[in-house]
Protein backbone atom coordinates (compact mmCIF):
# COMPACT_ATOMS: atom_id res chain seq x y z
CA UNK A 1 0.00 0.00 0.00
CA UNK A 2 1.08 3.60 -0.48
CA UNK A 3 1.85 5.93 2.42
CA UNK A 4 3.89 3.00 3.76
CA UNK A 5 5.62 4.79 6.61
CA UNK A 6 2.47 6.25 8.06
CA UNK A 7 0.79 2.83 8.01
CA UNK A 8 3.82 1.36 9.75
CA UNK A 9 3.75 4.08 12.41
CA UNK A 10 0.07 3.45 13.00
CA UNK A 11 0.71 -0.28 13.20
CA UNK A 12 3.35 0.15 15.90
CA UNK A 13 1.27 2.69 17.81
CA UNK A 14 -1.75 0.41 17.86
CA UNK A 15 0.01 -2.77 18.91
CA UNK A 16 2.28 -1.19 21.51
CA UNK A 17 -0.20 -0.80 24.42
CA UNK A 18 -0.87 -4.52 24.31
CA UNK A 19 2.79 -5.45 23.88
CA UNK A 20 3.70 -3.21 26.81
CA UNK A 21 1.00 -4.69 29.07
CA UNK A 22 1.98 -8.20 28.01
CA UNK A 23 5.63 -7.59 28.82
CA UNK A 24 4.89 -5.94 32.17
CA UNK A 25 2.22 -8.31 33.47
CA UNK A 26 2.99 -11.63 31.79
CA UNK A 27 6.51 -11.86 30.42
CA UNK A 28 8.21 -10.10 33.34
CA UNK A 29 6.46 -12.28 35.99
CA UNK A 30 7.19 -15.36 33.88
CA UNK A 31 10.93 -14.61 33.65
CA UNK A 32 11.08 -13.44 37.26
CA UNK A 33 9.47 -16.74 38.30
CA UNK A 34 12.12 -18.74 36.44
CA UNK A 35 14.87 -16.56 37.96
CA UNK A 36 13.47 -16.73 41.51
CA UNK A 37 13.08 -20.50 41.26
CA UNK A 38 16.88 -20.77 40.96
CA UNK A 39 17.46 -18.80 44.17
CA UNK A 40 16.96 -19.14 47.88
CA UNK A 41 14.41 -16.35 47.76
CA UNK A 42 12.53 -15.36 50.89
CA UNK A 43 9.21 -13.55 50.50
CA UNK A 44 9.99 -10.96 53.17
CA UNK A 45 13.80 -10.76 53.27
CA UNK A 46 14.38 -11.15 49.52
CA UNK A 47 17.16 -12.90 47.61
CA UNK A 48 19.53 -14.99 49.74
CA UNK A 49 21.69 -16.26 46.91
CA UNK A 50 21.78 -18.42 43.80
CA UNK A 51 21.18 -22.13 44.40
CA UNK A 52 20.90 -23.47 40.85
CA UNK A 53 18.42 -26.31 40.59
CA UNK A 54 18.56 -27.06 44.33
CA UNK A 55 14.92 -25.97 44.89
CA UNK A 56 13.74 -28.45 42.27
CA UNK A 57 15.97 -31.17 43.75
CA UNK A 58 14.56 -30.48 47.24
CA UNK A 59 10.98 -30.67 46.00
CA UNK A 60 11.60 -33.90 44.09
CA UNK A 61 13.77 -35.68 46.71
CA UNK A 62 11.67 -37.96 48.93
CA UNK A 63 11.86 -37.19 52.63
CA UNK A 64 12.23 -33.42 52.50
CA UNK A 65 9.60 -31.14 53.99
CA UNK A 66 8.86 -29.55 50.61
CA UNK A 67 8.68 -32.91 48.91
CA UNK A 68 6.02 -34.07 51.36
CA UNK A 69 3.98 -30.91 50.89
CA UNK A 70 4.22 -31.00 47.10
CA UNK A 71 3.53 -34.72 46.71
CA UNK A 72 0.56 -34.61 49.07
CA UNK A 73 -0.92 -31.66 47.18
CA UNK A 74 -0.21 -33.34 43.84
CA UNK A 75 -1.84 -36.57 45.02
CA UNK A 76 -4.93 -34.69 46.26
CA UNK A 77 -5.17 -32.77 43.00
CA UNK A 78 -4.94 -35.97 40.96
CA UNK A 79 -7.66 -37.54 43.14
CA UNK A 80 -9.93 -34.64 42.25
CA UNK A 81 -9.05 -34.84 38.55
CA UNK A 82 -9.90 -38.55 38.55
CA UNK A 83 -13.21 -38.20 40.40
CA UNK A 84 -14.36 -34.99 38.69
CA UNK A 85 -13.54 -35.36 35.00
CA UNK A 86 -15.85 -38.34 34.25
CA UNK A 87 -18.99 -36.75 35.77
CA UNK A 88 -18.15 -33.30 34.36
CA UNK A 89 -17.90 -34.76 30.86
CA UNK A 90 -20.53 -37.53 30.90
CA UNK A 91 -23.27 -35.56 32.70
CA UNK A 92 -22.58 -32.59 30.42
CA UNK A 93 -23.12 -34.81 27.38
CA UNK A 94 -26.32 -36.18 28.97
CA UNK A 95 -27.64 -32.66 29.54
CA UNK A 96 -26.80 -31.68 25.97
CA UNK A 97 -28.69 -34.74 24.68
CA UNK A 98 -31.73 -33.90 26.82
CA UNK A 99 -31.72 -30.33 25.46
CA UNK A 100 -31.21 -31.57 21.92
CA UNK A 101 -34.35 -33.73 22.14
CA UNK A 102 -36.59 -31.02 23.62
CA UNK A 103 -39.22 -29.28 21.47
CA UNK A 104 -37.45 -26.34 19.78
CA UNK A 105 -39.24 -23.54 21.58
CA UNK A 106 -38.37 -24.96 25.02
CA UNK A 107 -34.65 -25.32 24.28
CA UNK A 108 -33.47 -21.76 25.09
CA UNK A 109 -35.29 -21.69 28.45
CA UNK A 110 -33.77 -24.91 29.75
CA UNK A 111 -30.38 -24.14 28.24
CA UNK A 112 -30.30 -20.88 30.20
CA UNK A 113 -31.39 -22.58 33.44
CA UNK A 114 -28.68 -25.26 33.14
CA UNK A 115 -26.04 -22.65 32.31
CA UNK A 116 -26.90 -19.85 34.77
CA UNK A 117 -24.85 -21.21 37.70
CA UNK A 118 -21.71 -20.84 35.57
CA UNK A 119 -22.02 -17.04 35.84
CA UNK A 120 -21.59 -17.05 39.64
CA UNK A 121 -18.26 -16.58 41.40
CA UNK A 122 -16.49 -19.44 43.14
CA UNK A 123 -16.86 -17.61 46.46
CA UNK A 124 -20.65 -17.37 46.08
CA UNK A 125 -20.83 -21.03 45.05
CA UNK A 126 -18.75 -21.93 48.10
CA UNK A 127 -20.91 -19.84 50.43
CA UNK A 128 -24.04 -21.59 49.18
CA UNK A 129 -22.67 -25.14 49.34
CA UNK A 130 -20.87 -24.52 52.62
CA UNK A 131 -24.25 -23.82 54.18
CA UNK A 132 -26.05 -26.57 52.33
CA UNK A 133 -23.53 -29.14 53.56
CA UNK A 134 -22.60 -27.61 56.91
CA UNK A 135 -22.47 -30.11 59.75
CA UNK A 136 -24.20 -27.92 62.33
CA UNK A 137 -27.14 -26.04 60.92
CA UNK A 138 -26.55 -26.95 57.27
CA UNK A 139 -29.73 -27.38 55.26
CA UNK A 140 -29.07 -30.89 53.93
CA UNK A 141 -28.39 -32.37 57.37
CA UNK A 142 -31.42 -30.54 58.81
CA UNK A 143 -33.60 -31.91 56.03
CA UNK A 144 -32.30 -35.50 56.05
CA UNK A 145 -32.54 -35.76 59.83
CA UNK A 146 -36.01 -34.20 60.02
CA UNK A 147 -37.53 -36.55 57.45
CA UNK A 148 -35.84 -39.52 59.10
CA UNK A 149 -33.39 -40.58 56.37
CA UNK A 150 -30.50 -39.95 58.75
CA UNK A 151 -30.39 -40.61 62.52
CA UNK A 152 -27.30 -38.46 62.89
CA UNK A 153 -26.00 -35.57 60.83
CA UNK A 154 -23.27 -36.52 58.34
CA UNK A 155 -19.93 -34.74 58.68
CA UNK A 156 -19.98 -33.58 55.07
CA UNK A 157 -17.02 -31.23 55.43
CA UNK A 158 -14.72 -32.91 57.95
CA UNK A 159 -14.84 -36.55 56.96
CA UNK A 160 -13.85 -38.34 53.77
CA UNK A 161 -15.20 -39.32 51.31
CA UNK A 162 -17.93 -36.77 52.10
CA UNK A 163 -15.57 -33.77 51.85
CA UNK A 164 -14.63 -34.70 48.27
CA UNK A 165 -18.28 -35.42 47.51
CA UNK A 166 -19.32 -31.95 48.71
CA UNK A 167 -16.62 -30.26 46.62
CA UNK A 168 -17.51 -32.45 43.65
CA UNK A 169 -21.23 -31.64 43.82
CA UNK A 170 -20.50 -27.91 44.13
CA UNK A 171 -18.12 -28.07 41.18
CA UNK A 172 -20.48 -30.05 38.95
CA UNK A 173 -23.33 -27.64 39.72
CA UNK A 174 -21.12 -24.63 39.08
CA UNK A 175 -19.22 -25.53 35.91
CA UNK A 176 -21.07 -28.27 34.06
CA UNK A 177 -23.04 -25.76 31.97
CA UNK A 178 -19.87 -24.79 30.12
CA UNK A 179 -19.09 -28.32 28.94
CA UNK A 180 -22.77 -28.79 28.12
CA UNK A 181 -22.70 -25.74 25.82
CA UNK A 182 -19.69 -27.13 23.99
CA UNK A 183 -21.49 -30.45 23.51
CA UNK A 184 -24.62 -28.65 22.27
CA UNK A 185 -22.53 -26.91 19.61
CA UNK A 186 -21.00 -30.22 18.59
CA UNK A 187 -24.40 -31.95 18.37
CA UNK A 188 -25.74 -29.09 16.25
CA UNK A 189 -23.00 -29.64 13.72
CA UNK A 190 -23.74 -33.31 13.11
CA UNK A 191 -25.06 -33.69 9.56
CA UNK A 192 -28.84 -34.46 9.82
CA UNK A 193 -28.74 -36.61 6.68
CA UNK A 194 -26.71 -39.20 8.63
CA UNK A 195 -29.65 -39.67 11.02
CA UNK A 196 -32.13 -39.81 8.13
CA UNK A 197 -30.12 -42.56 6.49
CA UNK A 198 -30.03 -44.46 9.79
CA UNK A 199 -33.82 -44.03 10.15
CA UNK A 200 -34.31 -45.63 6.75
CA UNK A 201 -32.18 -48.56 7.93
CA UNK A 202 -34.43 -48.82 11.00
CA UNK A 203 -31.76 -48.01 13.57
CA UNK A 204 -32.98 -47.28 17.13
CA UNK A 205 -31.99 -44.23 19.19
CA UNK A 206 -29.26 -46.08 21.07
CA UNK A 207 -27.60 -47.40 17.92
CA UNK A 208 -27.80 -43.97 16.31
CA UNK A 209 -26.05 -42.50 19.35
CA UNK A 210 -23.27 -45.10 19.31
CA UNK A 211 -22.68 -45.27 15.56
CA UNK A 212 -23.42 -41.70 14.43
CA UNK A 213 -23.43 -39.17 17.27
CA UNK A 214 -20.36 -40.39 19.19
CA UNK A 215 -17.99 -40.66 16.22
CA UNK A 216 -19.17 -37.26 14.94
CA UNK A 217 -18.56 -35.42 18.24
CA UNK A 218 -15.37 -37.33 19.13
CA UNK A 219 -12.98 -34.44 18.45
CA UNK A 220 -14.98 -31.93 20.46
CA UNK A 221 -15.29 -34.49 23.27
CA UNK A 222 -11.52 -34.82 23.36
CA UNK A 223 -11.12 -31.06 23.53
CA UNK A 224 -13.66 -30.94 26.39
CA UNK A 225 -11.82 -33.68 28.31
CA UNK A 226 -8.52 -31.79 28.03
CA UNK A 227 -10.13 -28.50 29.12
CA UNK A 228 -11.82 -30.25 32.06
CA UNK A 229 -8.60 -31.93 33.20
CA UNK A 230 -6.89 -28.51 33.18
CA UNK A 231 -9.79 -26.90 35.08
CA UNK A 232 -9.80 -29.67 37.70
CA UNK A 233 -6.02 -29.39 38.08
CA UNK A 234 -6.57 -25.74 39.01
CA UNK A 235 -9.04 -26.57 41.82
CA UNK A 236 -8.64 -23.88 44.43
CA UNK A 237 -11.58 -21.79 45.61
CA UNK A 238 -13.96 -24.62 46.45
CA UNK A 239 -11.48 -26.52 48.59
CA UNK A 240 -10.08 -23.35 50.16
CA UNK A 241 -13.52 -22.10 51.17
CA UNK A 242 -15.77 -25.16 51.58
CA UNK A 243 -13.41 -27.60 53.33
CA UNK A 244 -10.44 -25.28 54.08
CA UNK A 245 -8.18 -27.98 52.64
CA UNK A 246 -9.28 -30.51 55.24
CA UNK A 247 -9.94 -32.95 56.75
CA UNK A 248 -6.26 -33.53 57.57
CA UNK A 249 -5.14 -31.69 54.42
CA UNK A 250 -6.84 -34.26 52.21
CA UNK A 251 -8.40 -31.56 50.00
CA UNK A 252 -5.32 -29.31 49.97
CA UNK A 253 -4.65 -28.91 46.25
CA UNK A 254 -1.47 -27.94 44.37
CA UNK A 255 -2.43 -24.28 44.11
CA UNK A 256 -3.17 -24.20 47.85
CA UNK A 257 0.06 -26.05 48.64
CA UNK A 258 2.10 -23.54 46.63
CA UNK A 259 0.27 -20.64 48.26
CA UNK A 260 1.07 -22.10 51.70
CA UNK A 261 4.73 -22.45 50.73
CA UNK A 262 4.94 -18.83 49.55
CA UNK A 263 2.90 -17.16 52.27
CA UNK A 264 2.91 -19.63 55.17
CA UNK A 265 6.58 -20.60 54.94
CA UNK A 266 7.78 -17.37 53.26
CA UNK A 267 9.56 -19.41 50.55
CA UNK A 268 9.04 -17.57 47.27
CA UNK A 269 11.92 -19.50 45.65
CA UNK A 270 10.59 -22.94 46.52
CA UNK A 271 7.04 -21.80 45.73
CA UNK A 272 8.07 -20.57 42.28
CA UNK A 273 9.78 -23.89 41.58
CA UNK A 274 6.63 -25.73 42.64
CA UNK A 275 4.50 -23.51 40.38
CA UNK A 276 6.78 -24.22 37.42
CA UNK A 277 6.67 -27.96 38.16
CA UNK A 278 2.87 -27.78 38.33
CA UNK A 279 2.85 -25.94 34.99
CA UNK A 280 5.11 -28.58 33.44
CA UNK A 281 2.92 -31.42 34.77
CA UNK A 282 -0.19 -29.76 33.30
CA UNK A 283 1.49 -29.25 29.94
CA UNK A 284 2.67 -32.88 29.91
CA UNK A 285 -0.83 -34.18 30.74
CA UNK A 286 -2.32 -32.00 27.99
CA UNK A 287 0.35 -33.06 25.50
CA UNK A 288 -0.13 -36.74 26.39
CA UNK A 289 -3.88 -36.50 25.85
CA UNK A 290 -3.37 -34.62 22.60
CA UNK A 291 -0.86 -37.21 21.45
CA UNK A 292 -3.23 -40.06 22.31
CA UNK A 293 -6.08 -38.54 20.32
CA UNK A 294 -3.70 -37.90 17.41
CA UNK A 295 -2.47 -41.50 17.44
CA UNK A 296 -6.02 -42.81 17.53
CA UNK A 297 -6.90 -40.72 14.50
CA UNK A 298 -3.88 -42.10 12.65
CA UNK A 299 -4.83 -45.70 13.45
CA UNK A 300 -8.38 -45.17 12.27
Amino acid sequence: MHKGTSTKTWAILMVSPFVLCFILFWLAPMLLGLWVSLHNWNLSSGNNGFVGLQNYVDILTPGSLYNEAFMLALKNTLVFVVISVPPLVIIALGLALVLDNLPTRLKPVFRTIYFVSYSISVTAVSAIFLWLFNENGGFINNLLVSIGILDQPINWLSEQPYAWLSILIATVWWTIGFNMMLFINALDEVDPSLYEAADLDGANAFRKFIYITLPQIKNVAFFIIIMTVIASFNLYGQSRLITAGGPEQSTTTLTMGIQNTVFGMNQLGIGSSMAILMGIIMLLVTAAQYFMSYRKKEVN
Partner: protein
Amino acid sequence: MRRKQKNIIIVTLAVLIAILFLLPLVWMVFTSFKTLSESMSSSAILPKVWTLQNYVDIFSPTSDAPILLWVFNTAVITAVGTILVVVIDILAAYSLARLNVPGKNIIIGIIIMALTIPGIVTLFPAFYIFKSFNLLDTFIPLILPYTASTMGVFLIYNFLVSFPKDLEEAAYLDGASQMQILRHVIFPAIKPVAVTLGVITFMGIYNDYLWPSLVINSNEMKTLTLGIATLIQGSNFVNPAGMMAATMVATIPAIVVFLVANKYFVKSVTNSGIK
Protein backbone atom coordinates in the same frame (compact mmCIF):
# COMPACT_ATOMS: atom_id res chain seq x y z
CA MET B 1 -48.71 -40.55 19.18
CA ARG B 2 -45.28 -42.00 20.01
CA ARG B 3 -43.72 -38.60 19.33
CA LYS B 4 -46.03 -37.01 21.90
CA GLN B 5 -45.15 -39.64 24.54
CA LYS B 6 -41.48 -39.10 23.91
CA ASN B 7 -41.96 -35.35 24.32
CA ILE B 8 -43.74 -35.76 27.66
CA ILE B 9 -40.94 -37.96 29.01
CA ILE B 10 -38.15 -35.67 27.84
CA VAL B 11 -39.86 -32.49 29.10
CA THR B 12 -40.49 -34.12 32.51
CA LEU B 13 -36.83 -35.10 32.69
CA ALA B 14 -35.75 -31.59 31.69
CA VAL B 15 -37.96 -30.06 34.38
CA LEU B 16 -36.56 -32.37 37.08
CA ILE B 17 -33.00 -31.44 36.09
CA ALA B 18 -33.95 -27.75 36.05
CA ILE B 19 -35.21 -28.08 39.63
CA LEU B 20 -31.86 -29.55 40.69
CA PHE B 21 -30.03 -26.65 39.05
CA LEU B 22 -32.29 -24.00 40.55
CA LEU B 23 -32.60 -25.43 44.10
CA PRO B 24 -29.32 -24.01 45.46
CA LEU B 25 -30.21 -20.56 44.09
CA VAL B 26 -33.80 -20.71 45.37
CA TRP B 27 -32.47 -21.85 48.74
CA MET B 28 -30.05 -18.89 48.77
CA VAL B 29 -32.86 -16.41 48.02
CA PHE B 30 -35.23 -17.66 50.72
CA THR B 31 -32.55 -18.27 53.35
CA SER B 32 -31.52 -14.62 53.07
CA PHE B 33 -35.01 -13.70 54.37
CA LYS B 34 -34.92 -16.09 57.35
CA THR B 35 -34.05 -15.11 60.92
CA LEU B 36 -30.63 -16.23 62.15
CA SER B 37 -32.01 -18.96 64.42
CA GLU B 38 -34.40 -20.25 61.78
CA SER B 39 -31.68 -20.35 59.13
CA MET B 40 -29.60 -22.61 61.40
CA SER B 41 -32.37 -25.10 62.18
CA SER B 42 -34.66 -24.91 59.17
CA SER B 43 -35.41 -27.93 57.05
CA ALA B 44 -37.84 -26.04 54.79
CA ILE B 45 -37.04 -23.89 51.79
CA LEU B 46 -39.51 -21.12 52.64
CA PRO B 47 -39.04 -18.97 55.76
CA LYS B 48 -41.67 -19.32 58.52
CA VAL B 49 -40.97 -15.74 59.56
CA TRP B 50 -39.88 -13.32 56.84
CA THR B 51 -37.32 -10.69 57.79
CA LEU B 52 -35.26 -8.01 56.07
CA GLN B 53 -32.92 -7.81 59.05
CA ASN B 54 -30.05 -9.58 57.23
CA TYR B 55 -30.04 -6.93 54.52
CA VAL B 56 -30.33 -4.11 57.08
CA ASP B 57 -27.34 -5.62 58.89
CA ILE B 58 -25.02 -6.01 55.92
CA PHE B 59 -25.83 -2.53 54.59
CA SER B 60 -25.42 -0.82 57.98
CA PRO B 61 -22.26 1.32 58.31
CA THR B 62 -21.17 -0.55 61.42
CA SER B 63 -21.20 -3.91 59.66
CA ASP B 64 -17.85 -5.69 59.51
CA ALA B 65 -18.70 -6.23 55.86
CA PRO B 66 -18.61 -2.79 54.13
CA ILE B 67 -20.69 -4.17 51.30
CA LEU B 68 -21.51 -0.83 49.66
CA LEU B 69 -17.81 -0.14 49.39
CA TRP B 70 -17.30 -3.59 47.85
CA VAL B 71 -20.03 -2.85 45.30
CA PHE B 72 -18.30 0.43 44.46
CA ASN B 73 -14.85 -1.18 44.15
CA THR B 74 -16.23 -3.95 41.98
CA ALA B 75 -18.02 -1.45 39.71
CA VAL B 76 -14.84 0.59 39.23
CA ILE B 77 -12.46 -2.26 38.51
CA THR B 78 -14.84 -4.22 36.25
CA ALA B 79 -15.76 -1.10 34.22
CA VAL B 80 -12.21 0.23 33.84
CA GLY B 81 -10.69 -3.22 33.39
CA THR B 82 -13.20 -4.36 30.77
CA ILE B 83 -12.93 -1.16 28.69
CA LEU B 84 -9.12 -1.22 28.85
CA VAL B 85 -8.90 -4.86 27.79
CA VAL B 86 -11.37 -4.51 24.92
CA VAL B 87 -9.77 -1.32 23.53
CA ILE B 88 -6.19 -2.56 23.86
CA ASP B 89 -7.06 -5.92 22.31
CA ILE B 90 -8.98 -4.43 19.36
CA LEU B 91 -6.13 -2.07 18.51
CA ALA B 92 -3.53 -4.84 18.74
CA ALA B 93 -5.60 -7.34 16.76
CA TYR B 94 -6.30 -4.79 14.01
CA SER B 95 -2.63 -3.91 13.78
CA LEU B 96 -1.62 -7.58 13.63
CA ALA B 97 -4.29 -8.64 11.16
CA ARG B 98 -4.18 -5.67 8.78
CA LEU B 99 -1.21 -3.34 9.14
CA ASN B 100 1.85 -5.57 8.71
CA VAL B 101 3.38 -4.50 11.98
CA PRO B 102 7.10 -5.36 12.22
CA GLY B 103 7.68 -8.62 14.07
CA LYS B 104 4.07 -9.67 13.47
CA ASN B 105 4.76 -13.42 13.29
CA ILE B 106 6.85 -13.38 16.45
CA ILE B 107 4.10 -11.54 18.36
CA ILE B 108 1.43 -13.97 17.17
CA GLY B 109 3.67 -16.92 18.03
CA ILE B 110 4.20 -15.59 21.55
CA ILE B 111 0.46 -14.95 21.97
CA ILE B 112 -0.36 -18.55 21.12
CA MET B 113 2.42 -19.87 23.34
CA ALA B 114 1.21 -17.74 26.26
CA LEU B 115 -2.28 -19.23 25.84
CA THR B 116 -0.93 -22.71 26.57
CA ILE B 117 1.08 -21.83 29.70
CA PRO B 118 -0.86 -22.39 32.94
CA GLY B 119 -1.62 -19.23 34.91
CA ILE B 120 -0.10 -20.57 38.14
CA VAL B 121 3.39 -19.99 36.72
CA THR B 122 3.06 -16.18 36.62
CA LEU B 123 0.75 -15.74 39.63
CA PHE B 124 3.16 -15.46 42.57
CA PRO B 125 5.96 -13.61 40.72
CA ALA B 126 3.35 -11.07 39.55
CA PHE B 127 2.30 -10.65 43.18
CA TYR B 128 5.95 -10.14 44.14
CA ILE B 129 6.41 -7.45 41.50
CA PHE B 130 3.42 -5.45 42.81
CA LYS B 131 4.68 -5.96 46.35
CA SER B 132 8.14 -4.67 45.40
CA PHE B 133 6.62 -1.51 43.92
CA ASN B 134 4.43 -0.98 47.00
CA LEU B 135 1.28 -1.30 44.92
CA LEU B 136 -0.49 -3.92 47.01
CA ASP B 137 -3.90 -2.91 48.35
CA THR B 138 -4.54 -0.48 45.48
CA PHE B 139 -6.75 -0.66 42.39
CA ILE B 140 -3.72 -1.00 40.11
CA PRO B 141 -3.08 -4.74 40.59
CA LEU B 142 -6.85 -5.28 40.50
CA ILE B 143 -7.11 -3.78 36.99
CA LEU B 144 -3.90 -3.76 34.96
CA PRO B 145 -2.82 -7.44 34.99
CA TYR B 146 -5.97 -8.44 33.08
CA THR B 147 -4.66 -6.47 30.08
CA ALA B 148 -1.89 -9.06 29.65
CA SER B 149 -4.39 -11.75 28.67
CA THR B 150 -3.74 -12.85 25.09
CA MET B 151 -7.13 -14.53 24.65
CA GLY B 152 -8.89 -11.36 23.46
CA VAL B 153 -6.26 -10.43 20.88
CA PHE B 154 -6.34 -13.98 19.58
CA LEU B 155 -10.17 -13.94 19.39
CA ILE B 156 -10.43 -10.66 17.46
CA TYR B 157 -7.36 -11.41 15.33
CA ASN B 158 -8.93 -14.67 14.17
CA PHE B 159 -12.18 -12.88 13.36
CA LEU B 160 -10.45 -10.15 11.35
CA VAL B 161 -8.30 -12.59 9.39
CA SER B 162 -11.41 -14.33 8.08
CA PHE B 163 -13.23 -11.04 7.43
CA PRO B 164 -13.06 -9.58 3.88
CA LYS B 165 -10.86 -6.51 3.40
CA ASP B 166 -12.82 -4.88 0.54
CA LEU B 167 -14.56 -2.19 2.58
CA GLU B 168 -11.38 -1.06 4.28
CA GLU B 169 -9.52 -0.87 1.00
CA ALA B 170 -12.31 1.19 -0.54
CA ALA B 171 -12.27 3.56 2.43
CA TYR B 172 -8.48 3.77 2.23
CA LEU B 173 -8.59 4.68 -1.47
CA ASP B 174 -11.16 7.36 -0.64
CA GLY B 175 -8.52 8.91 1.61
CA ALA B 176 -9.80 7.80 5.02
CA SER B 177 -7.21 7.77 7.84
CA GLN B 178 -6.43 4.67 9.91
CA MET B 179 -8.48 6.06 12.80
CA GLN B 180 -11.46 6.76 10.52
CA ILE B 181 -11.25 3.25 9.08
CA LEU B 182 -11.15 1.81 12.58
CA ARG B 183 -14.14 3.86 13.68
CA HIS B 184 -16.41 3.57 10.66
CA VAL B 185 -15.48 0.24 9.12
CA ILE B 186 -13.79 -2.03 11.66
CA PHE B 187 -15.75 -1.24 14.84
CA PRO B 188 -19.20 -1.88 13.32
CA ALA B 189 -17.92 -5.12 11.76
CA ILE B 190 -16.32 -6.56 14.88
CA LYS B 191 -18.98 -5.34 17.31
CA PRO B 192 -20.37 -8.83 18.08
CA VAL B 193 -16.91 -10.26 18.84
CA ALA B 194 -15.96 -7.15 20.83
CA VAL B 195 -19.14 -7.45 22.95
CA THR B 196 -18.42 -11.15 23.44
CA LEU B 197 -14.91 -10.31 24.61
CA GLY B 198 -16.34 -7.60 26.87
CA VAL B 199 -18.76 -10.05 28.49
CA ILE B 200 -16.07 -12.70 29.07
CA THR B 201 -13.68 -10.08 30.46
CA PHE B 202 -16.32 -8.57 32.74
CA MET B 203 -17.25 -11.99 34.10
CA GLY B 204 -13.59 -12.93 34.54
CA ILE B 205 -12.73 -9.80 36.52
CA TYR B 206 -16.00 -9.80 38.47
CA ASN B 207 -15.61 -13.42 39.55
CA ASP B 208 -11.85 -13.55 40.07
CA TYR B 209 -10.94 -14.73 43.55
CA LEU B 210 -7.36 -16.06 43.83
CA TRP B 211 -5.54 -13.04 42.35
CA PRO B 212 -7.45 -10.37 44.34
CA SER B 213 -6.98 -12.46 47.50
CA LEU B 214 -3.19 -12.16 47.03
CA VAL B 215 -2.95 -8.43 46.31
CA ILE B 216 -5.71 -7.04 48.55
CA ASN B 217 -5.54 -7.02 52.33
CA SER B 218 -7.70 -4.25 53.74
CA ASN B 219 -11.45 -4.72 53.99
CA GLU B 220 -12.11 -1.35 52.30
CA MET B 221 -10.32 -2.34 49.07
CA LYS B 222 -12.05 -5.69 48.52
CA THR B 223 -14.27 -6.70 45.64
CA LEU B 224 -17.65 -8.38 46.20
CA THR B 225 -16.23 -11.75 45.21
CA LEU B 226 -13.29 -11.42 47.60
CA GLY B 227 -15.56 -9.98 50.29
CA ILE B 228 -17.72 -13.10 50.26
CA ALA B 229 -14.59 -15.20 50.84
CA THR B 230 -13.72 -12.97 53.81
CA LEU B 231 -17.18 -13.48 55.26
CA ILE B 232 -16.87 -17.25 54.85
CA GLN B 233 -13.52 -17.28 56.65
CA GLY B 234 -14.43 -14.63 59.21
CA SER B 235 -16.78 -14.10 62.09
CA ASN B 236 -20.00 -14.31 60.05
CA PHE B 237 -19.17 -17.98 59.61
CA VAL B 238 -22.04 -19.06 61.84
CA ASN B 239 -24.76 -16.98 60.22
CA PRO B 240 -26.16 -18.66 57.11
CA ALA B 241 -28.95 -16.08 56.73
CA GLY B 242 -26.55 -13.12 56.76
CA MET B 243 -24.15 -15.03 54.55
CA MET B 244 -26.87 -15.65 51.96
CA ALA B 245 -27.96 -11.99 52.02
CA ALA B 246 -24.39 -10.95 51.18
CA THR B 247 -24.14 -13.71 48.58
CA MET B 248 -27.38 -12.44 46.99
CA VAL B 249 -25.88 -8.96 46.64
CA ALA B 250 -22.72 -10.43 45.10
CA THR B 251 -24.55 -12.82 42.79
CA ILE B 252 -27.38 -10.72 41.34
CA PRO B 253 -25.20 -8.41 39.16
CA ALA B 254 -23.44 -11.43 37.63
CA ILE B 255 -26.72 -13.22 36.92
CA VAL B 256 -28.32 -10.06 35.46
CA VAL B 257 -25.35 -9.52 33.11
CA PHE B 258 -25.48 -13.20 32.21
CA LEU B 259 -29.20 -13.07 31.35
CA VAL B 260 -28.98 -9.78 29.43
CA ALA B 261 -25.87 -10.81 27.51
CA ASN B 262 -26.93 -14.45 27.21
CA LYS B 263 -26.58 -14.41 23.42
CA TYR B 264 -22.98 -13.19 23.64
CA PHE B 265 -22.13 -15.50 26.49
CA VAL B 266 -23.33 -18.44 24.42
CA LYS B 267 -21.21 -17.16 21.53
CA SER B 268 -18.17 -16.89 23.79
CA VAL B 269 -18.41 -20.61 24.47
CA THR B 270 -18.70 -21.34 20.77
CA ASN B 271 -15.61 -19.24 20.16
CA SER B 272 -13.60 -20.94 22.88
CA GLY B 273 -14.42 -24.27 21.30
CA ILE B 274 -11.64 -23.83 18.78
CA LYS B 275 -12.00 -26.67 16.34
